[in-house]
């Protein structure tokens, strides 16, 4: 097992390098002169040239990349000019908030996705199956930012059960129950799409597994239907569901961009949207890099869990 994890970690290096090249390349493509952007339209040509030299922008691109990579690896993502603080500080702070939201959404979508998938498979072609199938379709077709607004309208404006926005109450908040109350609506919204995808997949994986020979063996032993479905079939089906949960993490992180905007959640998605509006390129760069890297890491975890589940493929 450790050997497998190690192998996967080593294989991660080229992927992360690739990510960094793509991010660097995208930023290098930006039209216009960054120094000019920083100094403003009234800068003298000498000042621009000096800053360019300072920033290393007069070097050839591959060299610029290496310098940049070296900085990144030492935790230096540059300085955000719009916030006037180090990018890394801002990114890490915001990323924590996103992790709370995305983590909760991921747990939720796994929970109901798998449950709904099982129910649909067990009651295949029955009413429960049809209802689940329909909800799943709605879930993957609904614009999440719209769903968020509807939920705010219902639960925050009409019923006044839950707060409409933010992560903590401005007055007297700050503790865990307060956080949870703020978390409910955005997390539920964010989990909708991914839950639909997971439910679909669980249903088809269960149906696939239920036709396998070892299920017949379990029945021939006299194992009850419950044991057959929940012990034998579910365990086998999870092998193909777990990696999809890993992929869903990407959709959840993506969806967080909308949901954070809708619910004014102080996460990295909202930070990115603001940074794009203010053309704070270094901030965008840092944010994108950190989220992408964490997504890659999460997929690795999903693969490891899959290998733990299935002894056949253990390295």
């Amino acid at each position, binding site marked *: 097992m450790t050997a497998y994890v190690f192998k996967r970690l080593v294989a991660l290096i080229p992927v992360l390098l690739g990510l960094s090249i793509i991010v660097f390349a995208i930023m290098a493509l930006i039209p216009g002169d960054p120094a000019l952007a920083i100094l403003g339209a009234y800068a003298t040509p000498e000042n621009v040239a000096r800053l360019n030299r300072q920033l290393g922008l007069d070097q050839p691109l591959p060299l610029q990349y290496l310098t940049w990579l070296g900085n990144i690896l030492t935790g230096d993502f540059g300085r955000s000019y719009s916030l006037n603080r180090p990018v890394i500080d801002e990114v890490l702070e915001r990323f924590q908030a996103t992790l709370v939201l995305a983590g909760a959404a991921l747990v939720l979508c796994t929970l109901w996705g798998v449950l709904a998938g099982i129910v649909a498979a067990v009651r295949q072609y029955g009413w429960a199956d049809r209802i689940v199938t329909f909800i799943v379709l709605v879930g993957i077709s609904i*614009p999440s930012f719209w769903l968020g607004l509807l939920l705010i309208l219902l639960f925050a404006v009409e019923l006044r059960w839950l707060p409409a926005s933010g992560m903590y109450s401005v007055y007297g908040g700050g503790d865990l129950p307060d956080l949870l109350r703020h978390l409910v609506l955005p997390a539920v919204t964010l989990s909708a799409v991914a839950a639909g995808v997971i439910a679909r997949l669980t249903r088809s994986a269960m149906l696939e597994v239920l036709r396998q020979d070892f299920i017949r063996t379990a029945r021939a032993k006299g194992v009850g239907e419950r044991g057959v479905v929940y012990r034998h079939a579910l365990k086998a089906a999870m092998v193909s569901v777990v990696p999809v949960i890993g992929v869903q993490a990407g959709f959840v992180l993506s969806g967080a961009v909308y949901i954070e905007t809708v619910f004014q959640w102080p996460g990295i998605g909202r930070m990115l949207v603001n940074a794009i509006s203010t053309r704070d390129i270094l901030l965008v760069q840092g944010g994108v890099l950190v989220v992408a890297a964490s997504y890659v890491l999460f997929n690795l975890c999903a693969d490891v869990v899959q290998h733990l589940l299935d002894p056949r493929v253990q390295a």
Partner: protein
Amino acid sequence: MTSAAGIAPPAEAPPPARSAWRLILRNRLAAAGLVVLASIILLALVTPLLPLHPPNATAPANRLLPPFSDGHLLGTDHLGRDILARLMWGTRLSLAVGISATFIAALIGSVIGILAGYTGGRTDNTMMRGIDMLMAFPYILLALAIVAVLGPGLFNALIAVAIVNIPFFARNIRGATVGIVHREFIDAARLSGKGRLRILAADVLPNVLPVIVITMSTTVGWMILETAGLSFLGLGSQPPQADLGSMLGEGRRLLMNAPHVSYLPGLVIFLIVMSINLLGDGVRDALDPRLRAGALARPAPMTAIDRTDMGTDVAPVDAPLSVDHLTTQFRLGSDTHHAVNEVSLSLGRGECLGVIGESGSGKSVTALSLAALVASPPGVIAGGRVLLHGSDLLSKSARELRKVRGRDVAYIFQDPLSTLHPQFTVGDQLVEAIRAHRHMSRAAAWAEAVRLLDLVRIPNPRGRARAYPHELSGGMRQRVGIAMALANAPEIIVADEPTTALDVTVQAQVLDLMDELRRDRDTAVLFITHDFGVVTQICDRVAVMYAGRIVETGPTRQVLEDPAHPYTRKLIDCVPVLGSGRRRFDAISGLPPAANRLPRGCAFAERCELADAACRAGPIAMHEIAAGRQARCVRPLAGTS
């Protein structure tokens, strides 16, 4: 799928008819999707011709009118603009942008995919690595990075969304291209000296086009959502131009006092995407042959039972198991495959009965039918009884039957690699078998499991109990299968080709073991095989099956030395040396009849040298040809009575 309609199935076994109904329902939903989508597109097309307010004309006096106001059917927004007009123009824009993005992604992705797939080798490798890299980004993040570079704007959002979706196309289309690139017609085109571009355009492209179209239909909904999303964030369309996403984004600020400004555009996006998804799903389902064949249906806990004929024979009192006119069918659509036809047999205490036949003769289905283990749908037990000490197993409920399975009647299956659960240790699987029928602590059951492993002569049973099936050799796995069958000391064991997957030496060891164990315990065994060598080694009596019927039965030695049925004769002639393993059924010229088109008369007539009109006239009955011997033939080769 009409034959099973109106027949009450046992609990939880859906009749095939219901799946047909579901297909229609699915397609009805798909039809609904089509209608909605078509109307939206049509409306979007004719929008400029309709007598609408100008979408961007502001009228501060008419701010935030609610829906159904005079002159403004859906009300107005914060600048007094008519929402209906804005919705229709916004829909037009959103559709145009989403569809354009789809076409751009499809074009670039397909070019990459076809080039990579056709060229292969290093080019393919490099291109796909790059694609994988792009896919390592969470979806929207890449789009955001691109918009960050290009700057906010609807056109830039379109480009970003298209780029983000290129990898999907590239991957799918590369896969399709790789699939056809080595087919003859491509080789022929290459040999004919056609240029590379012409081959790609004239031979490859038409063949991968369906994949491109399918990928487009599955991604277009997403792309509409994504472009709307970017506009919602303020990164797409900029005022005064408005697509559905930016209308929603603007309306969001008025959520508290004028919710209609934001929920209407969202509703339209939802309708568009939902109708696309409905349509796509419906068409995909309708095209899926597995769904039609019921191959995706969940097998019920027990085979569906729909008996028209309950058998007639009086069960022999002394026989623990007797099967009476058992008939099992596979109902696929309107087609019925007659797998097992009125099979009768009985198994005495401690007796071993071999059932021999070619694959497809119905021997395994007979074995599985005994405990209603045939997968259903599509399997249906259509007649007969299975009597265990005189009580009919087939009239039991699934719950009652569960108590019989593994306790009174246990199974040993072929190929334990697929019949043992790959993710549980063999010890756990044995414990489960034990605890399914006996109240026992886990620890005691584990000790019992180790004892069973020892009994089937697995060396180091304590250690092996902790092994997973794939960690054992084929012979060891089959011993585990045997141990599992013995777990509750059943009176009857049904062994379905338990040695077929093993090589000859291991096969002999396993057979010896089984023979010894059954004699020690006085267990009756129904032994399914296609190997006469195996039958001679272990079976007291043998029943020969052909096309779902037993054609001859009698004591093993007599049948073997003096077969009565022409089919048995040929089978035996095919065995070069008894016990040497593989016999060659192919030595009999011709093929058995298809199970969905069985002849009225003798099923063997097409391959039989003695066949004449009498053989084909009608069903041939089993005749007693000597004491304890029966054959289904009008002119048996042995016996006279």
